[in-house]
């Protein structure tokens, strides 16, 4: 089924209480309510403050490296034999992934709030590295929570965070991945909320995070829209991005939502296939529920207990999807497919070999989707795929899985 936009514009989301239709909201313990309300208010002030926006844009340009190129992947396009494929090169940003767009914005906000201590969760370690980086840049105290399993598979990023001056706390509860790291960060925040800001790393959690994180990543789509109009004198036919919590995808999609001809596909982690506890594809076998502050689509059993998830990529290995994606799914505005571990690894190898660009395993899920759809599209059609991060952090794991070799890091 193809979901193309209706001609009528989508309503502006979220509402003032952070609801995206029936999704989103503020499902948190009372202790956090006033901090979240304070954050919402300060964010609204910052958004309207030209000094804040100028400073953010200056740092995005000079420190982070924006704008990122929109690159026509000629050899890959030729190989797939269909639509022209452009890569939005978020992998070229400082620290190697899109995550720093949000980390920088929220760090500036923490400074406005007078909070000198920063905490964050991380899965793949990219958000942890981005947060540790901006904390170093502004002299903020930084603690990162990370699942012990993820620390093992993303050891390079753990070392980077430590060099950057962050304290990395291993979380061993449950399946010791991203969800448990969020729980632990929330517990820290409940305890230290008066002097601590929590830089949540995806378009997830309680209001205002899903809205705020989206807004800080919209720059991806705003640039891509302008760049493709310059290159092709037309809008793209298709946008593709991987969806963990949903930040890089909503950043690319959002500025195009009211362009009816632009089709969009979000790609979830299919893991070892759509079997219980073997994947993280919330729209395949998921259900409506409430987790970590937000009402959304998630993977849980009949008793409401959150299910185990699996993905080769730590950044997509999470049981809930950002609430705006749940809403866009309901509205039939964005399609959601999945790529398995195997497909992602094949995509990782192909892009590396054909274009000389090693993608993050997260981004490789989007690349895998393009491999399926591009050949079926006409040569006059245009795809933009978000290359959300570079694959350096995944080299040891990919070597083990593809070359069957251990690389000691």
């Amino acid at each position: 089924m193809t979901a193309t936009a209706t001609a009528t514009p989508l309503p502006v989301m979220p509402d003032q209480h952070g609801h995206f239709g029936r999704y989103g909201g503020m499902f948190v313990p009372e202790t956090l309510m006033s901090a979240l309300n304070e954050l919402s208010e300060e964010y609204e002030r910052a958004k309207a403050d030209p000094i804040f926006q100028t400073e953010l844009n200056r740092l995005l340009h000079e420190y982070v490296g924006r704008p990122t190129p929109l690159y026509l992947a000629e050899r890959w396009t030729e190989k797939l034999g269909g639509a022209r494929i452009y890569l939005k090169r978020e992998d070229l940003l400082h620290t190697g992934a899109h995550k720093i767009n949000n980390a920088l914005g929220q760090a500036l906000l923490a400074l406005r709030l007078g909070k000198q201590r920063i905490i964050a969760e991380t899965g793949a370690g990219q958000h942890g590295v981005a947060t540790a980086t901006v904390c170093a840049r502004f002299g903020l105290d930084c603690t990162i929570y990370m699942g012990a399993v993820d620390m093992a598979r993303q050891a390079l990023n753990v070392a980077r965070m430590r060099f950057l001056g962050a304290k990395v706390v291993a979380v061993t509860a449950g399946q010791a991945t991203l969800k448990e790291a969020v729980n632990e960060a929330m517990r820290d925040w409940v305890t230290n909320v008066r002097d601590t800001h929590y830089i949540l790393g995806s378009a997830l959690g309680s209001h205002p995070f899903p809205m705020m994180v989206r807004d800080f990543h919209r720059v991806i789509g705003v640039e891509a829209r302008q760049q493709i109009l310059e290159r092709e004198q037309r809008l793209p036919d298709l946008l593709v991005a991987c969806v963990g919590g949903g930040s890089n995808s909503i950043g690319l999609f959002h500025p195009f939502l009211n362009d009816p001809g632009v089709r969009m596909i979000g790609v979830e982690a299919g893991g070892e296939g759509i079997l219980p506890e073997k994947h993280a594809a919330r729209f395949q076998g998921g259900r409506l529920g409430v987790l970590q502050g937000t009402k959304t689509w998630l993977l849980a059993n009949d008793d409401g207990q959150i299910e185990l998830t699996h993905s080769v990529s730590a950044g997509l290995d999470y049981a809930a999807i950002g609430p705006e994606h749940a809403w866009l799914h309901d509205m039939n505005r964005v399609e959601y497919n999945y790529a398995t571990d195997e497909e992602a690894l094949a995509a990782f190898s192909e892009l590396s070999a054909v274009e000389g660009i090693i993608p993050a395993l997260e981004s490789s899920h989007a690349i895998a989707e393009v491999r399926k759809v591009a050949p079926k599209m006409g040569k006059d059609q245009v795809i933009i795929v978000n290359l959300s991060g570079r694959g350096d952090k995944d080299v040891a794991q990919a070597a083990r899985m593809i070359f069957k070799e251990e690389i000691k890091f």
Partner: protein
Amino acid sequence: MSAPANRIDTRFADLKASGKRAFVAYVAAGDPTLDATIDIVLGLERAGVDIVELGVPFSDPLADGVVNQLAADRALKAGATMPKVLEMIRQLRVKSQIPIVLFTYLNPVYTYGYERFHKDAAAAGADGVLVLDLPPDEVVQNTELKPTPELCHIQLIAPTSPPERIASIAKSAEGFVYYVSRLGVTGAQVEIASGIAEQVQIIKGSTQVPVCVGFGVSNPEQAAKVASMADGVVVGSAIVKLIEKNGASPDVAEQVEAFVKPLVDAVHAL
């Protein structure tokens, strides 16, 4: 107050008549097993506990400290589910009329069905519910989460709640207000927080409903001190820790009773 008297309201009325403060005990339902929970609650009742909070386990208890997290894990491993917890309460009601509050997170309630949960829990014999991640704001904004008459909705107030929020939460309070005495997750503390008496007075300025204070109380001296500043005290992790240590022994209920009795006595002696 037109609803039929609930066991919680009756208990507070009785306590008020005899000039006593309430002792509220928390345990995780199903830790170490659901059968053991029945015996443990009966032990709490023998020790003189006024109200029991039963934790319905959730896989991701983000407002709980490590002691309660591990208890939820044990309960889930032992097979505790919402229907089984409700069945356990039904069995308990044959032997005891102690007021029971279910203490949980929204997702298990939501998955069971919000309205259905209220009807079934009340029918099983529960008196109140406290959903840690359901602030009153969301109840107002979600038609599917509307307040139901069957159970008392116990509300939390935190040290970070600003005065306007305190007033609006207290105004709609049912059963009792649970004042969280310090920032942080559940768990026993060496020292008790400051400013409790002042906050309790602010809350009492907006409601007739009793105010109980919890988070971090673990011994008779603390219990008496905290209770003296309010209408009651809540003790949880200290009891759960004892169950963690001695859950396998056949007389765990008696051990819980022996541990809790001096705490209850210290509070009732005030």
